[in-house]
């Protein structure tokens, strides 16, 4: 049999192939030859054949039949064979292969070979792809080699040990003795790999970390020598002495200095020195500076050092090199929470990065920009961010839109600005906004009572332009349904009112129903909107016709709605006005504090948690924001800023514990109940989904009022009504009056009921109870009592009287039977 062709010749031949098919043919032919050669157990050419196989493997062809051959090569005495054999093992024989373990013995022998290059091969292979079993078996050998004086082997053994520890962390202890004098080595290879090993050990084990903390002075010394020493040609890179080692030492120092004052102090000087003396003209220098900045920010460094670090990052931002800018933005993102003010100084540079061509830089700049938005810069920032939203790639639009909404809710300087911003987002990135933005926006619009006319007009105009963006269309149709009367009335304070007829509005809504662009959800919105207009417009017949057509729609959802609305026209026409009345101001029922923390990322679904005892009810309060800060939940729930007490400052994250003090940790164990997804288009607790008006003067018998609380001059009276359609709901109005000479300001009324009840608190008329009975604060409570149990309530009152805060808890038990039976 002729000698198998040489590797280079095969490569040359395969490269002449002009098509994939031709290549495949050549490869198949060669593979067949190799296979038969393997079968013949030919020792001479095994090496050559395996090498060829590895080449073909790189081209993407299967090479598994060479696995055993690699093992044979490794077992051979010839260095050439071993070299290719180990290479083959690393490429073909990872731990997923069955024959993998057969290597162990060979490696063990080679680890003790007389030639260091063979030992090196074995160490390298073990260190790159040894399985856990192999590592277990051979750890002892590695440990032995870690103690050798041969630096060529020692450095490899150190990295091999790193791999062993990664695979089998329990073996870490075993390497501890060998690390004793690793750092006293002069050889940079050993030094570098030792630092890597120490880093790995410290990262994995707090005990090791404590143990190695004492190395800080030695590390500092080594680093100092590197910086101060003169030119060393062997380790020099662009004028810097062994930057790789410097970076690794800095990283180890970071881990050792973290949360330890003494260590951090010991490294302050050297960090300052590196930060100021490192050359920044080339990438190497910047790599070291980068690592230094990361270390400074992570340890307990003094403030001067931190400012130095942020300034370095600021300079990075202005660097021409994209890579440096990228790295700066990443680091700033990490530090913006802790060193907010320092980062703010670089805001304009960061905003400029929004216009960068590089996608990664843009993304980071966007995230950072959102982190830097605050009440002072909101207008300017939002202008930039909206411009960015206009022009950015689709992959950014969803995140950017969400970010804009969140920032707008937190810092909107005015209602009109807020709505304009939302409109802008919906019209430019309407198809990318997240699903939950629609209900959130609807709620926002509902609560901005004075802007209703303006909002509906703008949304209507937007609809005329473009009906393809579903979230925009949905919000618009909802608004038109609610405020269509304002639209046709031609009244608008904020801008020039448009003249729209009822028919034009209905045309638009009907257009949505038939358009191919509308999703089923959108169709549902527009049908409901049309229905609502039946109480606001006079063209009822037209609406009746539309509704009846859809009674036979193929879409089940639409059909159901249409049929029910039809019924509303026929049998229940007397209820129609009440049912379709204007929505009241909606409240978000907030959840308990700890639950909030678990649901971060601006989770806006309200959840109703179960506590051990009583379900909690929230109330808009000024304390809400303080509590949010204490809990650190800055972006937990959007808090709608309002100034008038008649609008609910939708509470987020208030922790109400009516059973005791406001305990922020522990306290009654809160088991967050699965949040019932509250459809925001209907106020919660109206389980029949009908009435939207709080006060129902209906046919129930008059229920006597009662005094619920009377103490220190504050008197609270309850008056009752039963909601007619749902006899399980009791509507209580509280009247708070003040007989003392001083006003009671910041008055907050909170209530809790036993588990079987559900409670809803609407917004108070005011939070000042005027002195001397000059007026009263009223507030409506709705209580759902499906089990018709005796109503009990616990109330908590807080107010400020004559400059001092007052707080009181009371039980209310004397409810008249008619209120709950």
């Amino acid at each position, binding site marked *: 049999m002729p000698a198998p062709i040489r590797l280079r010749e095969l490569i040359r031949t395969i490269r002449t192939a002009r098509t994939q098919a031709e290549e495949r043919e050549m490869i198949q032919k060669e593979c067949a030859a190799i296979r038969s050669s393997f079968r013949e157990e030919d020792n001479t050419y095994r090496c050559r054949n395996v090498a060829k196989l590895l080449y073909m493997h790189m081209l993407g062809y299967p090479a598994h039949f060479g696995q055993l051959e690699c093992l044979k090569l490794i077992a051979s005495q010839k260095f050439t064979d071993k070299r290719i054999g180990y290479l083959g093992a690393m490429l073909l024989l990872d731990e997923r292969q069955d024959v993998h373990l057969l290597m162990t013995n060979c490696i063990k022998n080679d680890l003790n070979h007389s030639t260091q290059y063979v030992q*090196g091969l074995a160490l*390298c292979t073990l260190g*790159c792809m040894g399985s856990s079993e192999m590592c277990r078996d051979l750890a002892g050998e590695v440990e032995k080699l870690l103690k050798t004086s041969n630096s060529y082997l020692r450095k490899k053994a150190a990295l091999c040990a790193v*791999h062993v520890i990664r695979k089998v962390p329990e073996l870490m202890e075993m390497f501890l003795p060998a690390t004793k004098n690793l750092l006293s080595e002069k050889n*940079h290879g050993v030094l570098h790999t030792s630092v890597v090993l120490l880093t790995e050990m410290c990262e994995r084990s707090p005990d090791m970390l404590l143990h190695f903390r004492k190395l800080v002075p030695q590390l500092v010394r080594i680093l100092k020598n590197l910086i101060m020493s003169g030119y060393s040609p062997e380790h020099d890179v662009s004028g810097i002495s062994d930057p790789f080692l410097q970076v690794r030492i800095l990283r180890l120092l970071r881990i050792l200095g973290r949360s330890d004052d003494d260590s951090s102090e010991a490294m302050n000087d050297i960090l300052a020195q590196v930060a100021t003396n490192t050359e920044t003209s080339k990438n190497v220098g910047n790599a070291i500076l980068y690592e230094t900045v990361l270390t400074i920010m992570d340890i307990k460094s003094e403030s001067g050092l931190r400012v130095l670090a942020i300034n370095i990052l600021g300079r990075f931002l202005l660097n021409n090199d994209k890579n440096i800018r990228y790295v700066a933005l990443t680091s700033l993102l990490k530090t913006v929470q802790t060193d907010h003010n320092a980062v703010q100084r670089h805001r304009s540079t960061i905003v400029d990065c929004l216009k960068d061509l590089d996608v*990664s830089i843009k993304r980071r700049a966007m995230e950072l920009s959102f982190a830097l938005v605050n009440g002072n810069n909101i207008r300017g920032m939002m202008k930039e961010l909206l411009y960015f939203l206009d022009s950015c790639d689709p992959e950014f639009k969803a995140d950017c839109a969400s970010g804009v909404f969140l920032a707008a809710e937190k810092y909107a300087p005015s209602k009109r600005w807020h709505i304009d911003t939302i409109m802008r987002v919906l019209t430019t990135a309407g198809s990318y906004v997240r699903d939950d933005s629609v209900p959130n926006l609807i709620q926002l619009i509902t609560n901005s009572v004075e802007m209703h006319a303006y909002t509906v007009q703008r949304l209507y105009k937007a609809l005329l332009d473009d009906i393809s963006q579903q979230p925009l269309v949905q919000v618009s149709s909802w608004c038109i349904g609610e405020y269509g009367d304002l639209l046709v009335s031609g009244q608008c304070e904020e801008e020039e009112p448009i003249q729209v007829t009822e028919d034009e509005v209905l045309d638009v809504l009907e257009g949505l129903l038939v358009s191919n662009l509308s999703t089923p959800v959108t169709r549902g919105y527009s049908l409901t909107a049309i229905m609502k207009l039946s109480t606001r417009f006079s063209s009822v017949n037209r609406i009746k016709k539309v509704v009846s057509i859809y009674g036979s729609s193929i879409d089940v959802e639409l059909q159901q709605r249409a049929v029910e609305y039809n019924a509303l026209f026929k049998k229940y026409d007397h209820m129609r006005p009440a049912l379709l009345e204007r929505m009241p101001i909606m409240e978000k029922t907030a959840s308990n504090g700890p639950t909030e923390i678990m649901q971060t990322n601006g989770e806006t679904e309200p959840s109703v948690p179960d506590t051990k005892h009583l379900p909690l009810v929230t109330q808009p309060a000024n304390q809400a924001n303080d509590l949010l800060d204490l809990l650190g939940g800055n972006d937990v729930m959007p808090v709608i800023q309002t100034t008038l007490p008649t609008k609910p400052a939708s509470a987020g994250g208030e922790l109400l514990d009516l059973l005791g003090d406001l305990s922020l940790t522990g306290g009654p164990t809160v088991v967050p109940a699965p949040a019932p997804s509250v459809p925001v288009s209907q106020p919660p607790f109206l389980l029949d989904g009908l009435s939207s008006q709080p006060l129902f003067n209906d046919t129930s018998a008059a229920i006597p009022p009662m005094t619920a609380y009377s103490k220190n001059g504050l008197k609270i009276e309850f008056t009752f009504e039963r909601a007619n359609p749902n006899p399980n709901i009791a509507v209580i109005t509280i009247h708070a009056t003040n007989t003392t000479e001083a006003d009671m300001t910041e008055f907050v009324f909170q209530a809790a009921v036993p588990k079987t009840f559900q409670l809803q608190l609407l917004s108070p008329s005011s939070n000042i109870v005027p002195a001397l009975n000059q007026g009263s604060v009223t507030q409506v409570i709705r209580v759902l009592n499906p089990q018709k149990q005796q109503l009990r309530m616990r109330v908590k009152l807080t107010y400020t009287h004559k400059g001092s805060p007052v707080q009181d808890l009371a039980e209310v038990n004397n409810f008249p039977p008619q209120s709950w039976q």
Partner: protein
Amino acid sequence: MMRFMLLFSRQGKLRLQKWYTATAERDKKKMVRELMQVVLARKPKMSSFLEWRDLKIVYKRYASLYFCCAVEEQDNELITLEVIHRFVELLDKYFGSVCELDIIFNFEKAYFILDEFLIGGEIQDTSKKSVLKAIEQADLLQEEDESPRSVLEEMGLA
């Protein structure tokens, strides 16, 4: 740590792949394909870093070859660029003005050099001289292996 390093041409041909974690063959192929696509689509003015899956990718183009490394979250991207550069310098010194063809025809040598420079994704030796010397010595060993054999073969005694 470095998870893997890839070398590939502008046409998407793989020239070297070194994996430092155990990955299934199928997954490797998929990742290589995906990553090549992403990197080759990058414009020249873009930064050398990108996020891909849960890793950071650091890549640099030298003539017709892309050198592409995947590192973890806590790794320093700028120094990784230097690592790539060091590897290129080693290849250059070894082959004498290295070009893609050298790596194609001597891929096993490229692997040997890489394995003398990195183990488990970490640098073994920061001295160029030291690494090159070790390769040189190992090559000598290989020659010693081969020469006696060919002499004996010539004499027909093998």
